[in-house]
């Protein structure tokens, strides 16, 4: 119906002088936006099919393609934006919930960009990481609290199980199903080479990847997909997913089109069925239930593996985190509202949750006020975009960070935010074999290693500038941060001073 027609938001622009009709754009577009017209002997395209993933742009050998924002517009209206109007047409046409992918793209404040980092001058020498040792190794897990001695007066090793990270960066949960086999292989191999961890997400662990167990965190979510005893013991740690920053309050969504043979086997569900995780864990309706699951998993894994509890950053995150810290978790992972997803209702992604910076500051401060900060490690995710964000997160109080969107970008993701369609042209968020093949893990894992290695170099440079030579001394060191353009209230939540103070 004509009323449903929406002019595409982005247009494919082809420079006909440069186009040699090699048809690579046509062959590489899973959305079939390009085709060759033999009569006209020209490449043609339909911008309405384009998701703006840049696959054609990146592969065009003569640089003949670009994608531009359309200048087609509704009559200007500061209240009824084109986006609102278009979404109303779409919902009026379908009666459905709007779906989106990846993190909240709206113009909310980004606190990382409102904090500045300190450097040493005169009274304290900066340290040169090229000439002096500079340590970024981190141990995650509960600390013992009280040193114990044996009968000979020697210190007893009463340290609970720890995760050893060579870099303060891990790859956060992305399920096999939401992303491809090759994406998982890339993450697993990169984690092994970097001395860090990747996370299975809630879709179980493919049999081929058990060999990366020493660098794997296995996740248990409300759908319990692919969870069994061998799985729980396959990794170095177990993560209970209570929530996800992109969609707090609801469970994971994997459209049935992505549930193919391998996924079905790994998840232990029928092929083609939608994998919709329940919003709550149906055995966890309160904090005391969570404690029981934490200890059930510890029993199942012989108390040898740290248990992580992952929550979305929501309004009373500090109190929740405190409950988790007392509930036996070794590590708390907090996911901010900018965190990514393979599929989420748009309204939830864009309107639910709070910024990770504020959540982290509140949780760290609360746990310190209660004297239980060392009972747990804190890992934060939800849009860590650069090494500077990592440094700021650690200075606010995190032990380490989780990255996922950045990791996917290293693998080729161009943030087109169409994962839910399963047609990822970069071979990441798809299960179509011909598309999965586009991500060669030999290339992918190396790019992940490069990214994290580069960030680690930068973290060392920034730490050295501050006169710090070990990451422990950065953790919670909020004097190293100053706010810029923040209100008194924001400063007090972040626990930092304003620049110039």
């Amino acid at each position: 119906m004509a009323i449903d027609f929406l002019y595409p938001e982005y247009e494919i622009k082809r420079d006909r002088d440069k186009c040699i009709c090699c048809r690579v754009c046509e062959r590489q577009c899973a959305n079939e936006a390009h085709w060759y017209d033999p009569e006209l002997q020209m490449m043609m395209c339909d911008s309405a099919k384009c998701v703006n993933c840049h696959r054609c742009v990146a592969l065009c050998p003569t640089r003949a393609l670009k994608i531009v924002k359309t200048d087609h517009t509704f009559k200007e209206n500061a209240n009824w934006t084109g986006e609102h109007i278009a979404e109303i047409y779409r919902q009026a046409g379908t009666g459905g919930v709007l779906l989106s992918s990846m993190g909240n793209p709206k113009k909310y404040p980004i606190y990382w960009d409102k904090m500045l980092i300190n450097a040493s001058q005169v009274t304290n020498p900066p340290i040169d990481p090229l000439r002096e040792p500079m340590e970024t190794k981190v141990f995650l897990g509960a600390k013992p609290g009280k040193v114990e001695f044996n009968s000979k007066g020697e210190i007893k090793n009463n340290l609970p199980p720890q995760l050893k990270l060579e870099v303060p960066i891990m790859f956060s949960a992305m399920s096999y199903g939401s992303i491809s086999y090759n994406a998982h292989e890339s993450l697993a191999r990169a984690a092994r080479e970097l001395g860090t961890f990747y996370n299975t997400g809630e879709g179980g662990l493919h049999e081929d990847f058990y060999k990366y167990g020493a660098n794997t965190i296995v996740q248990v979510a409300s759908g319990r997909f692919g969870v069994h005893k061998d799985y729980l013991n396959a990794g170095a740690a177990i993560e209970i997913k209570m929530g996800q920053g992109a969609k707090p309050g609801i469970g994971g969504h994997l459209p049935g089109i992505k549930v193919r043979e391998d996924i079905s086997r790994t998840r232990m569900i029928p092929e083609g069925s939608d994998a919709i995780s329940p919003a709550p864990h149906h055995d966890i309706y309160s904090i005391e239930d969570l404690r029981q699951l934490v200890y059930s998993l510890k029993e199942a894994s012989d108390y040898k593996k740290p248990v992580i509890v992952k929550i979305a950053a929501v309004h009373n995150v500090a109190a929740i985190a405190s409950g988790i810290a007392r509930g036996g978790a070794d590590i708390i992972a907090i996911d901010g509202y900018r965190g990514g997803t393979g599929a989420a209702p748009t309204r939830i992604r864009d309107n639910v949750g709070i910024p990770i910076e504020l959540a982290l500051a509140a949780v760290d401060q609360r746990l310190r006020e209660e004297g239980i900060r060392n009972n747990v490690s804190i890992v934060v995710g939800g849009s860590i975009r650069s090494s500077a964000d990592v440094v700021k997160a650690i200075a606010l109080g995190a032990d380490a960070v989780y990255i996922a969107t950045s990791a996917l970008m290293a693998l080729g993701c161009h943030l087109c935010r169409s994962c839910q369609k399963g047609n990822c042209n970069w071979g990441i968020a798809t299960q179509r074999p011909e598309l999965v093949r586009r991500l060669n893990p030999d290339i992918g894992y190396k790019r992940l290693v490069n990214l994290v290695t580069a960030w680690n170099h930068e973290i060392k440079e920034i730490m050295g500038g501050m006169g710090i030579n070990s990451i422990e001394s950065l953790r919670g060191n909020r004097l190293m941060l100053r706010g810029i353009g923040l209100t008194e209230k924001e400063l007090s939540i972040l626990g930092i001073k304003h620049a110039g103070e």
Partner: protein
Amino acid sequence: MKRIYVNEKWCLGCHLCEYYCAFANSGKDSMVKALKNVTINPRIRIEEHGGISFAVSCRHCEEPICTKSCITGALTVNDGVIQIDKDKCVGCYTCILTCPYGAIVPSDTGAIQKCELCINNSSGKPACVAGCPNKAIVFEEKE
């Protein structure tokens, strides 16, 4: 010796290797100038059927049949690379018939053409390898 190897597992069938090959051997300084409105005749070709694809080009065999079959001595092995002297080639196409890989083809000038690892063209190193977006074609030492 470094050779070109292909791995069909990673071949996307995008055919970019053919275009980079055609451009490298065109003698032109831009791909647009070289290939605009041209039907390309590359030295590497994608074979595809039923979802499987891979690139085929000269294997630079250690005991090549093509050189033996050449009636004028136009095909020779130099440092392991099988090269064609177009001035000597009379276009009998015996080599094309004998090559078990189908890696030798007629050129637009009548002489045959084949992959010479880009050692004599503007690229200097295999252009198909550099242009492959998924490392399905590699240039490396094996054994």
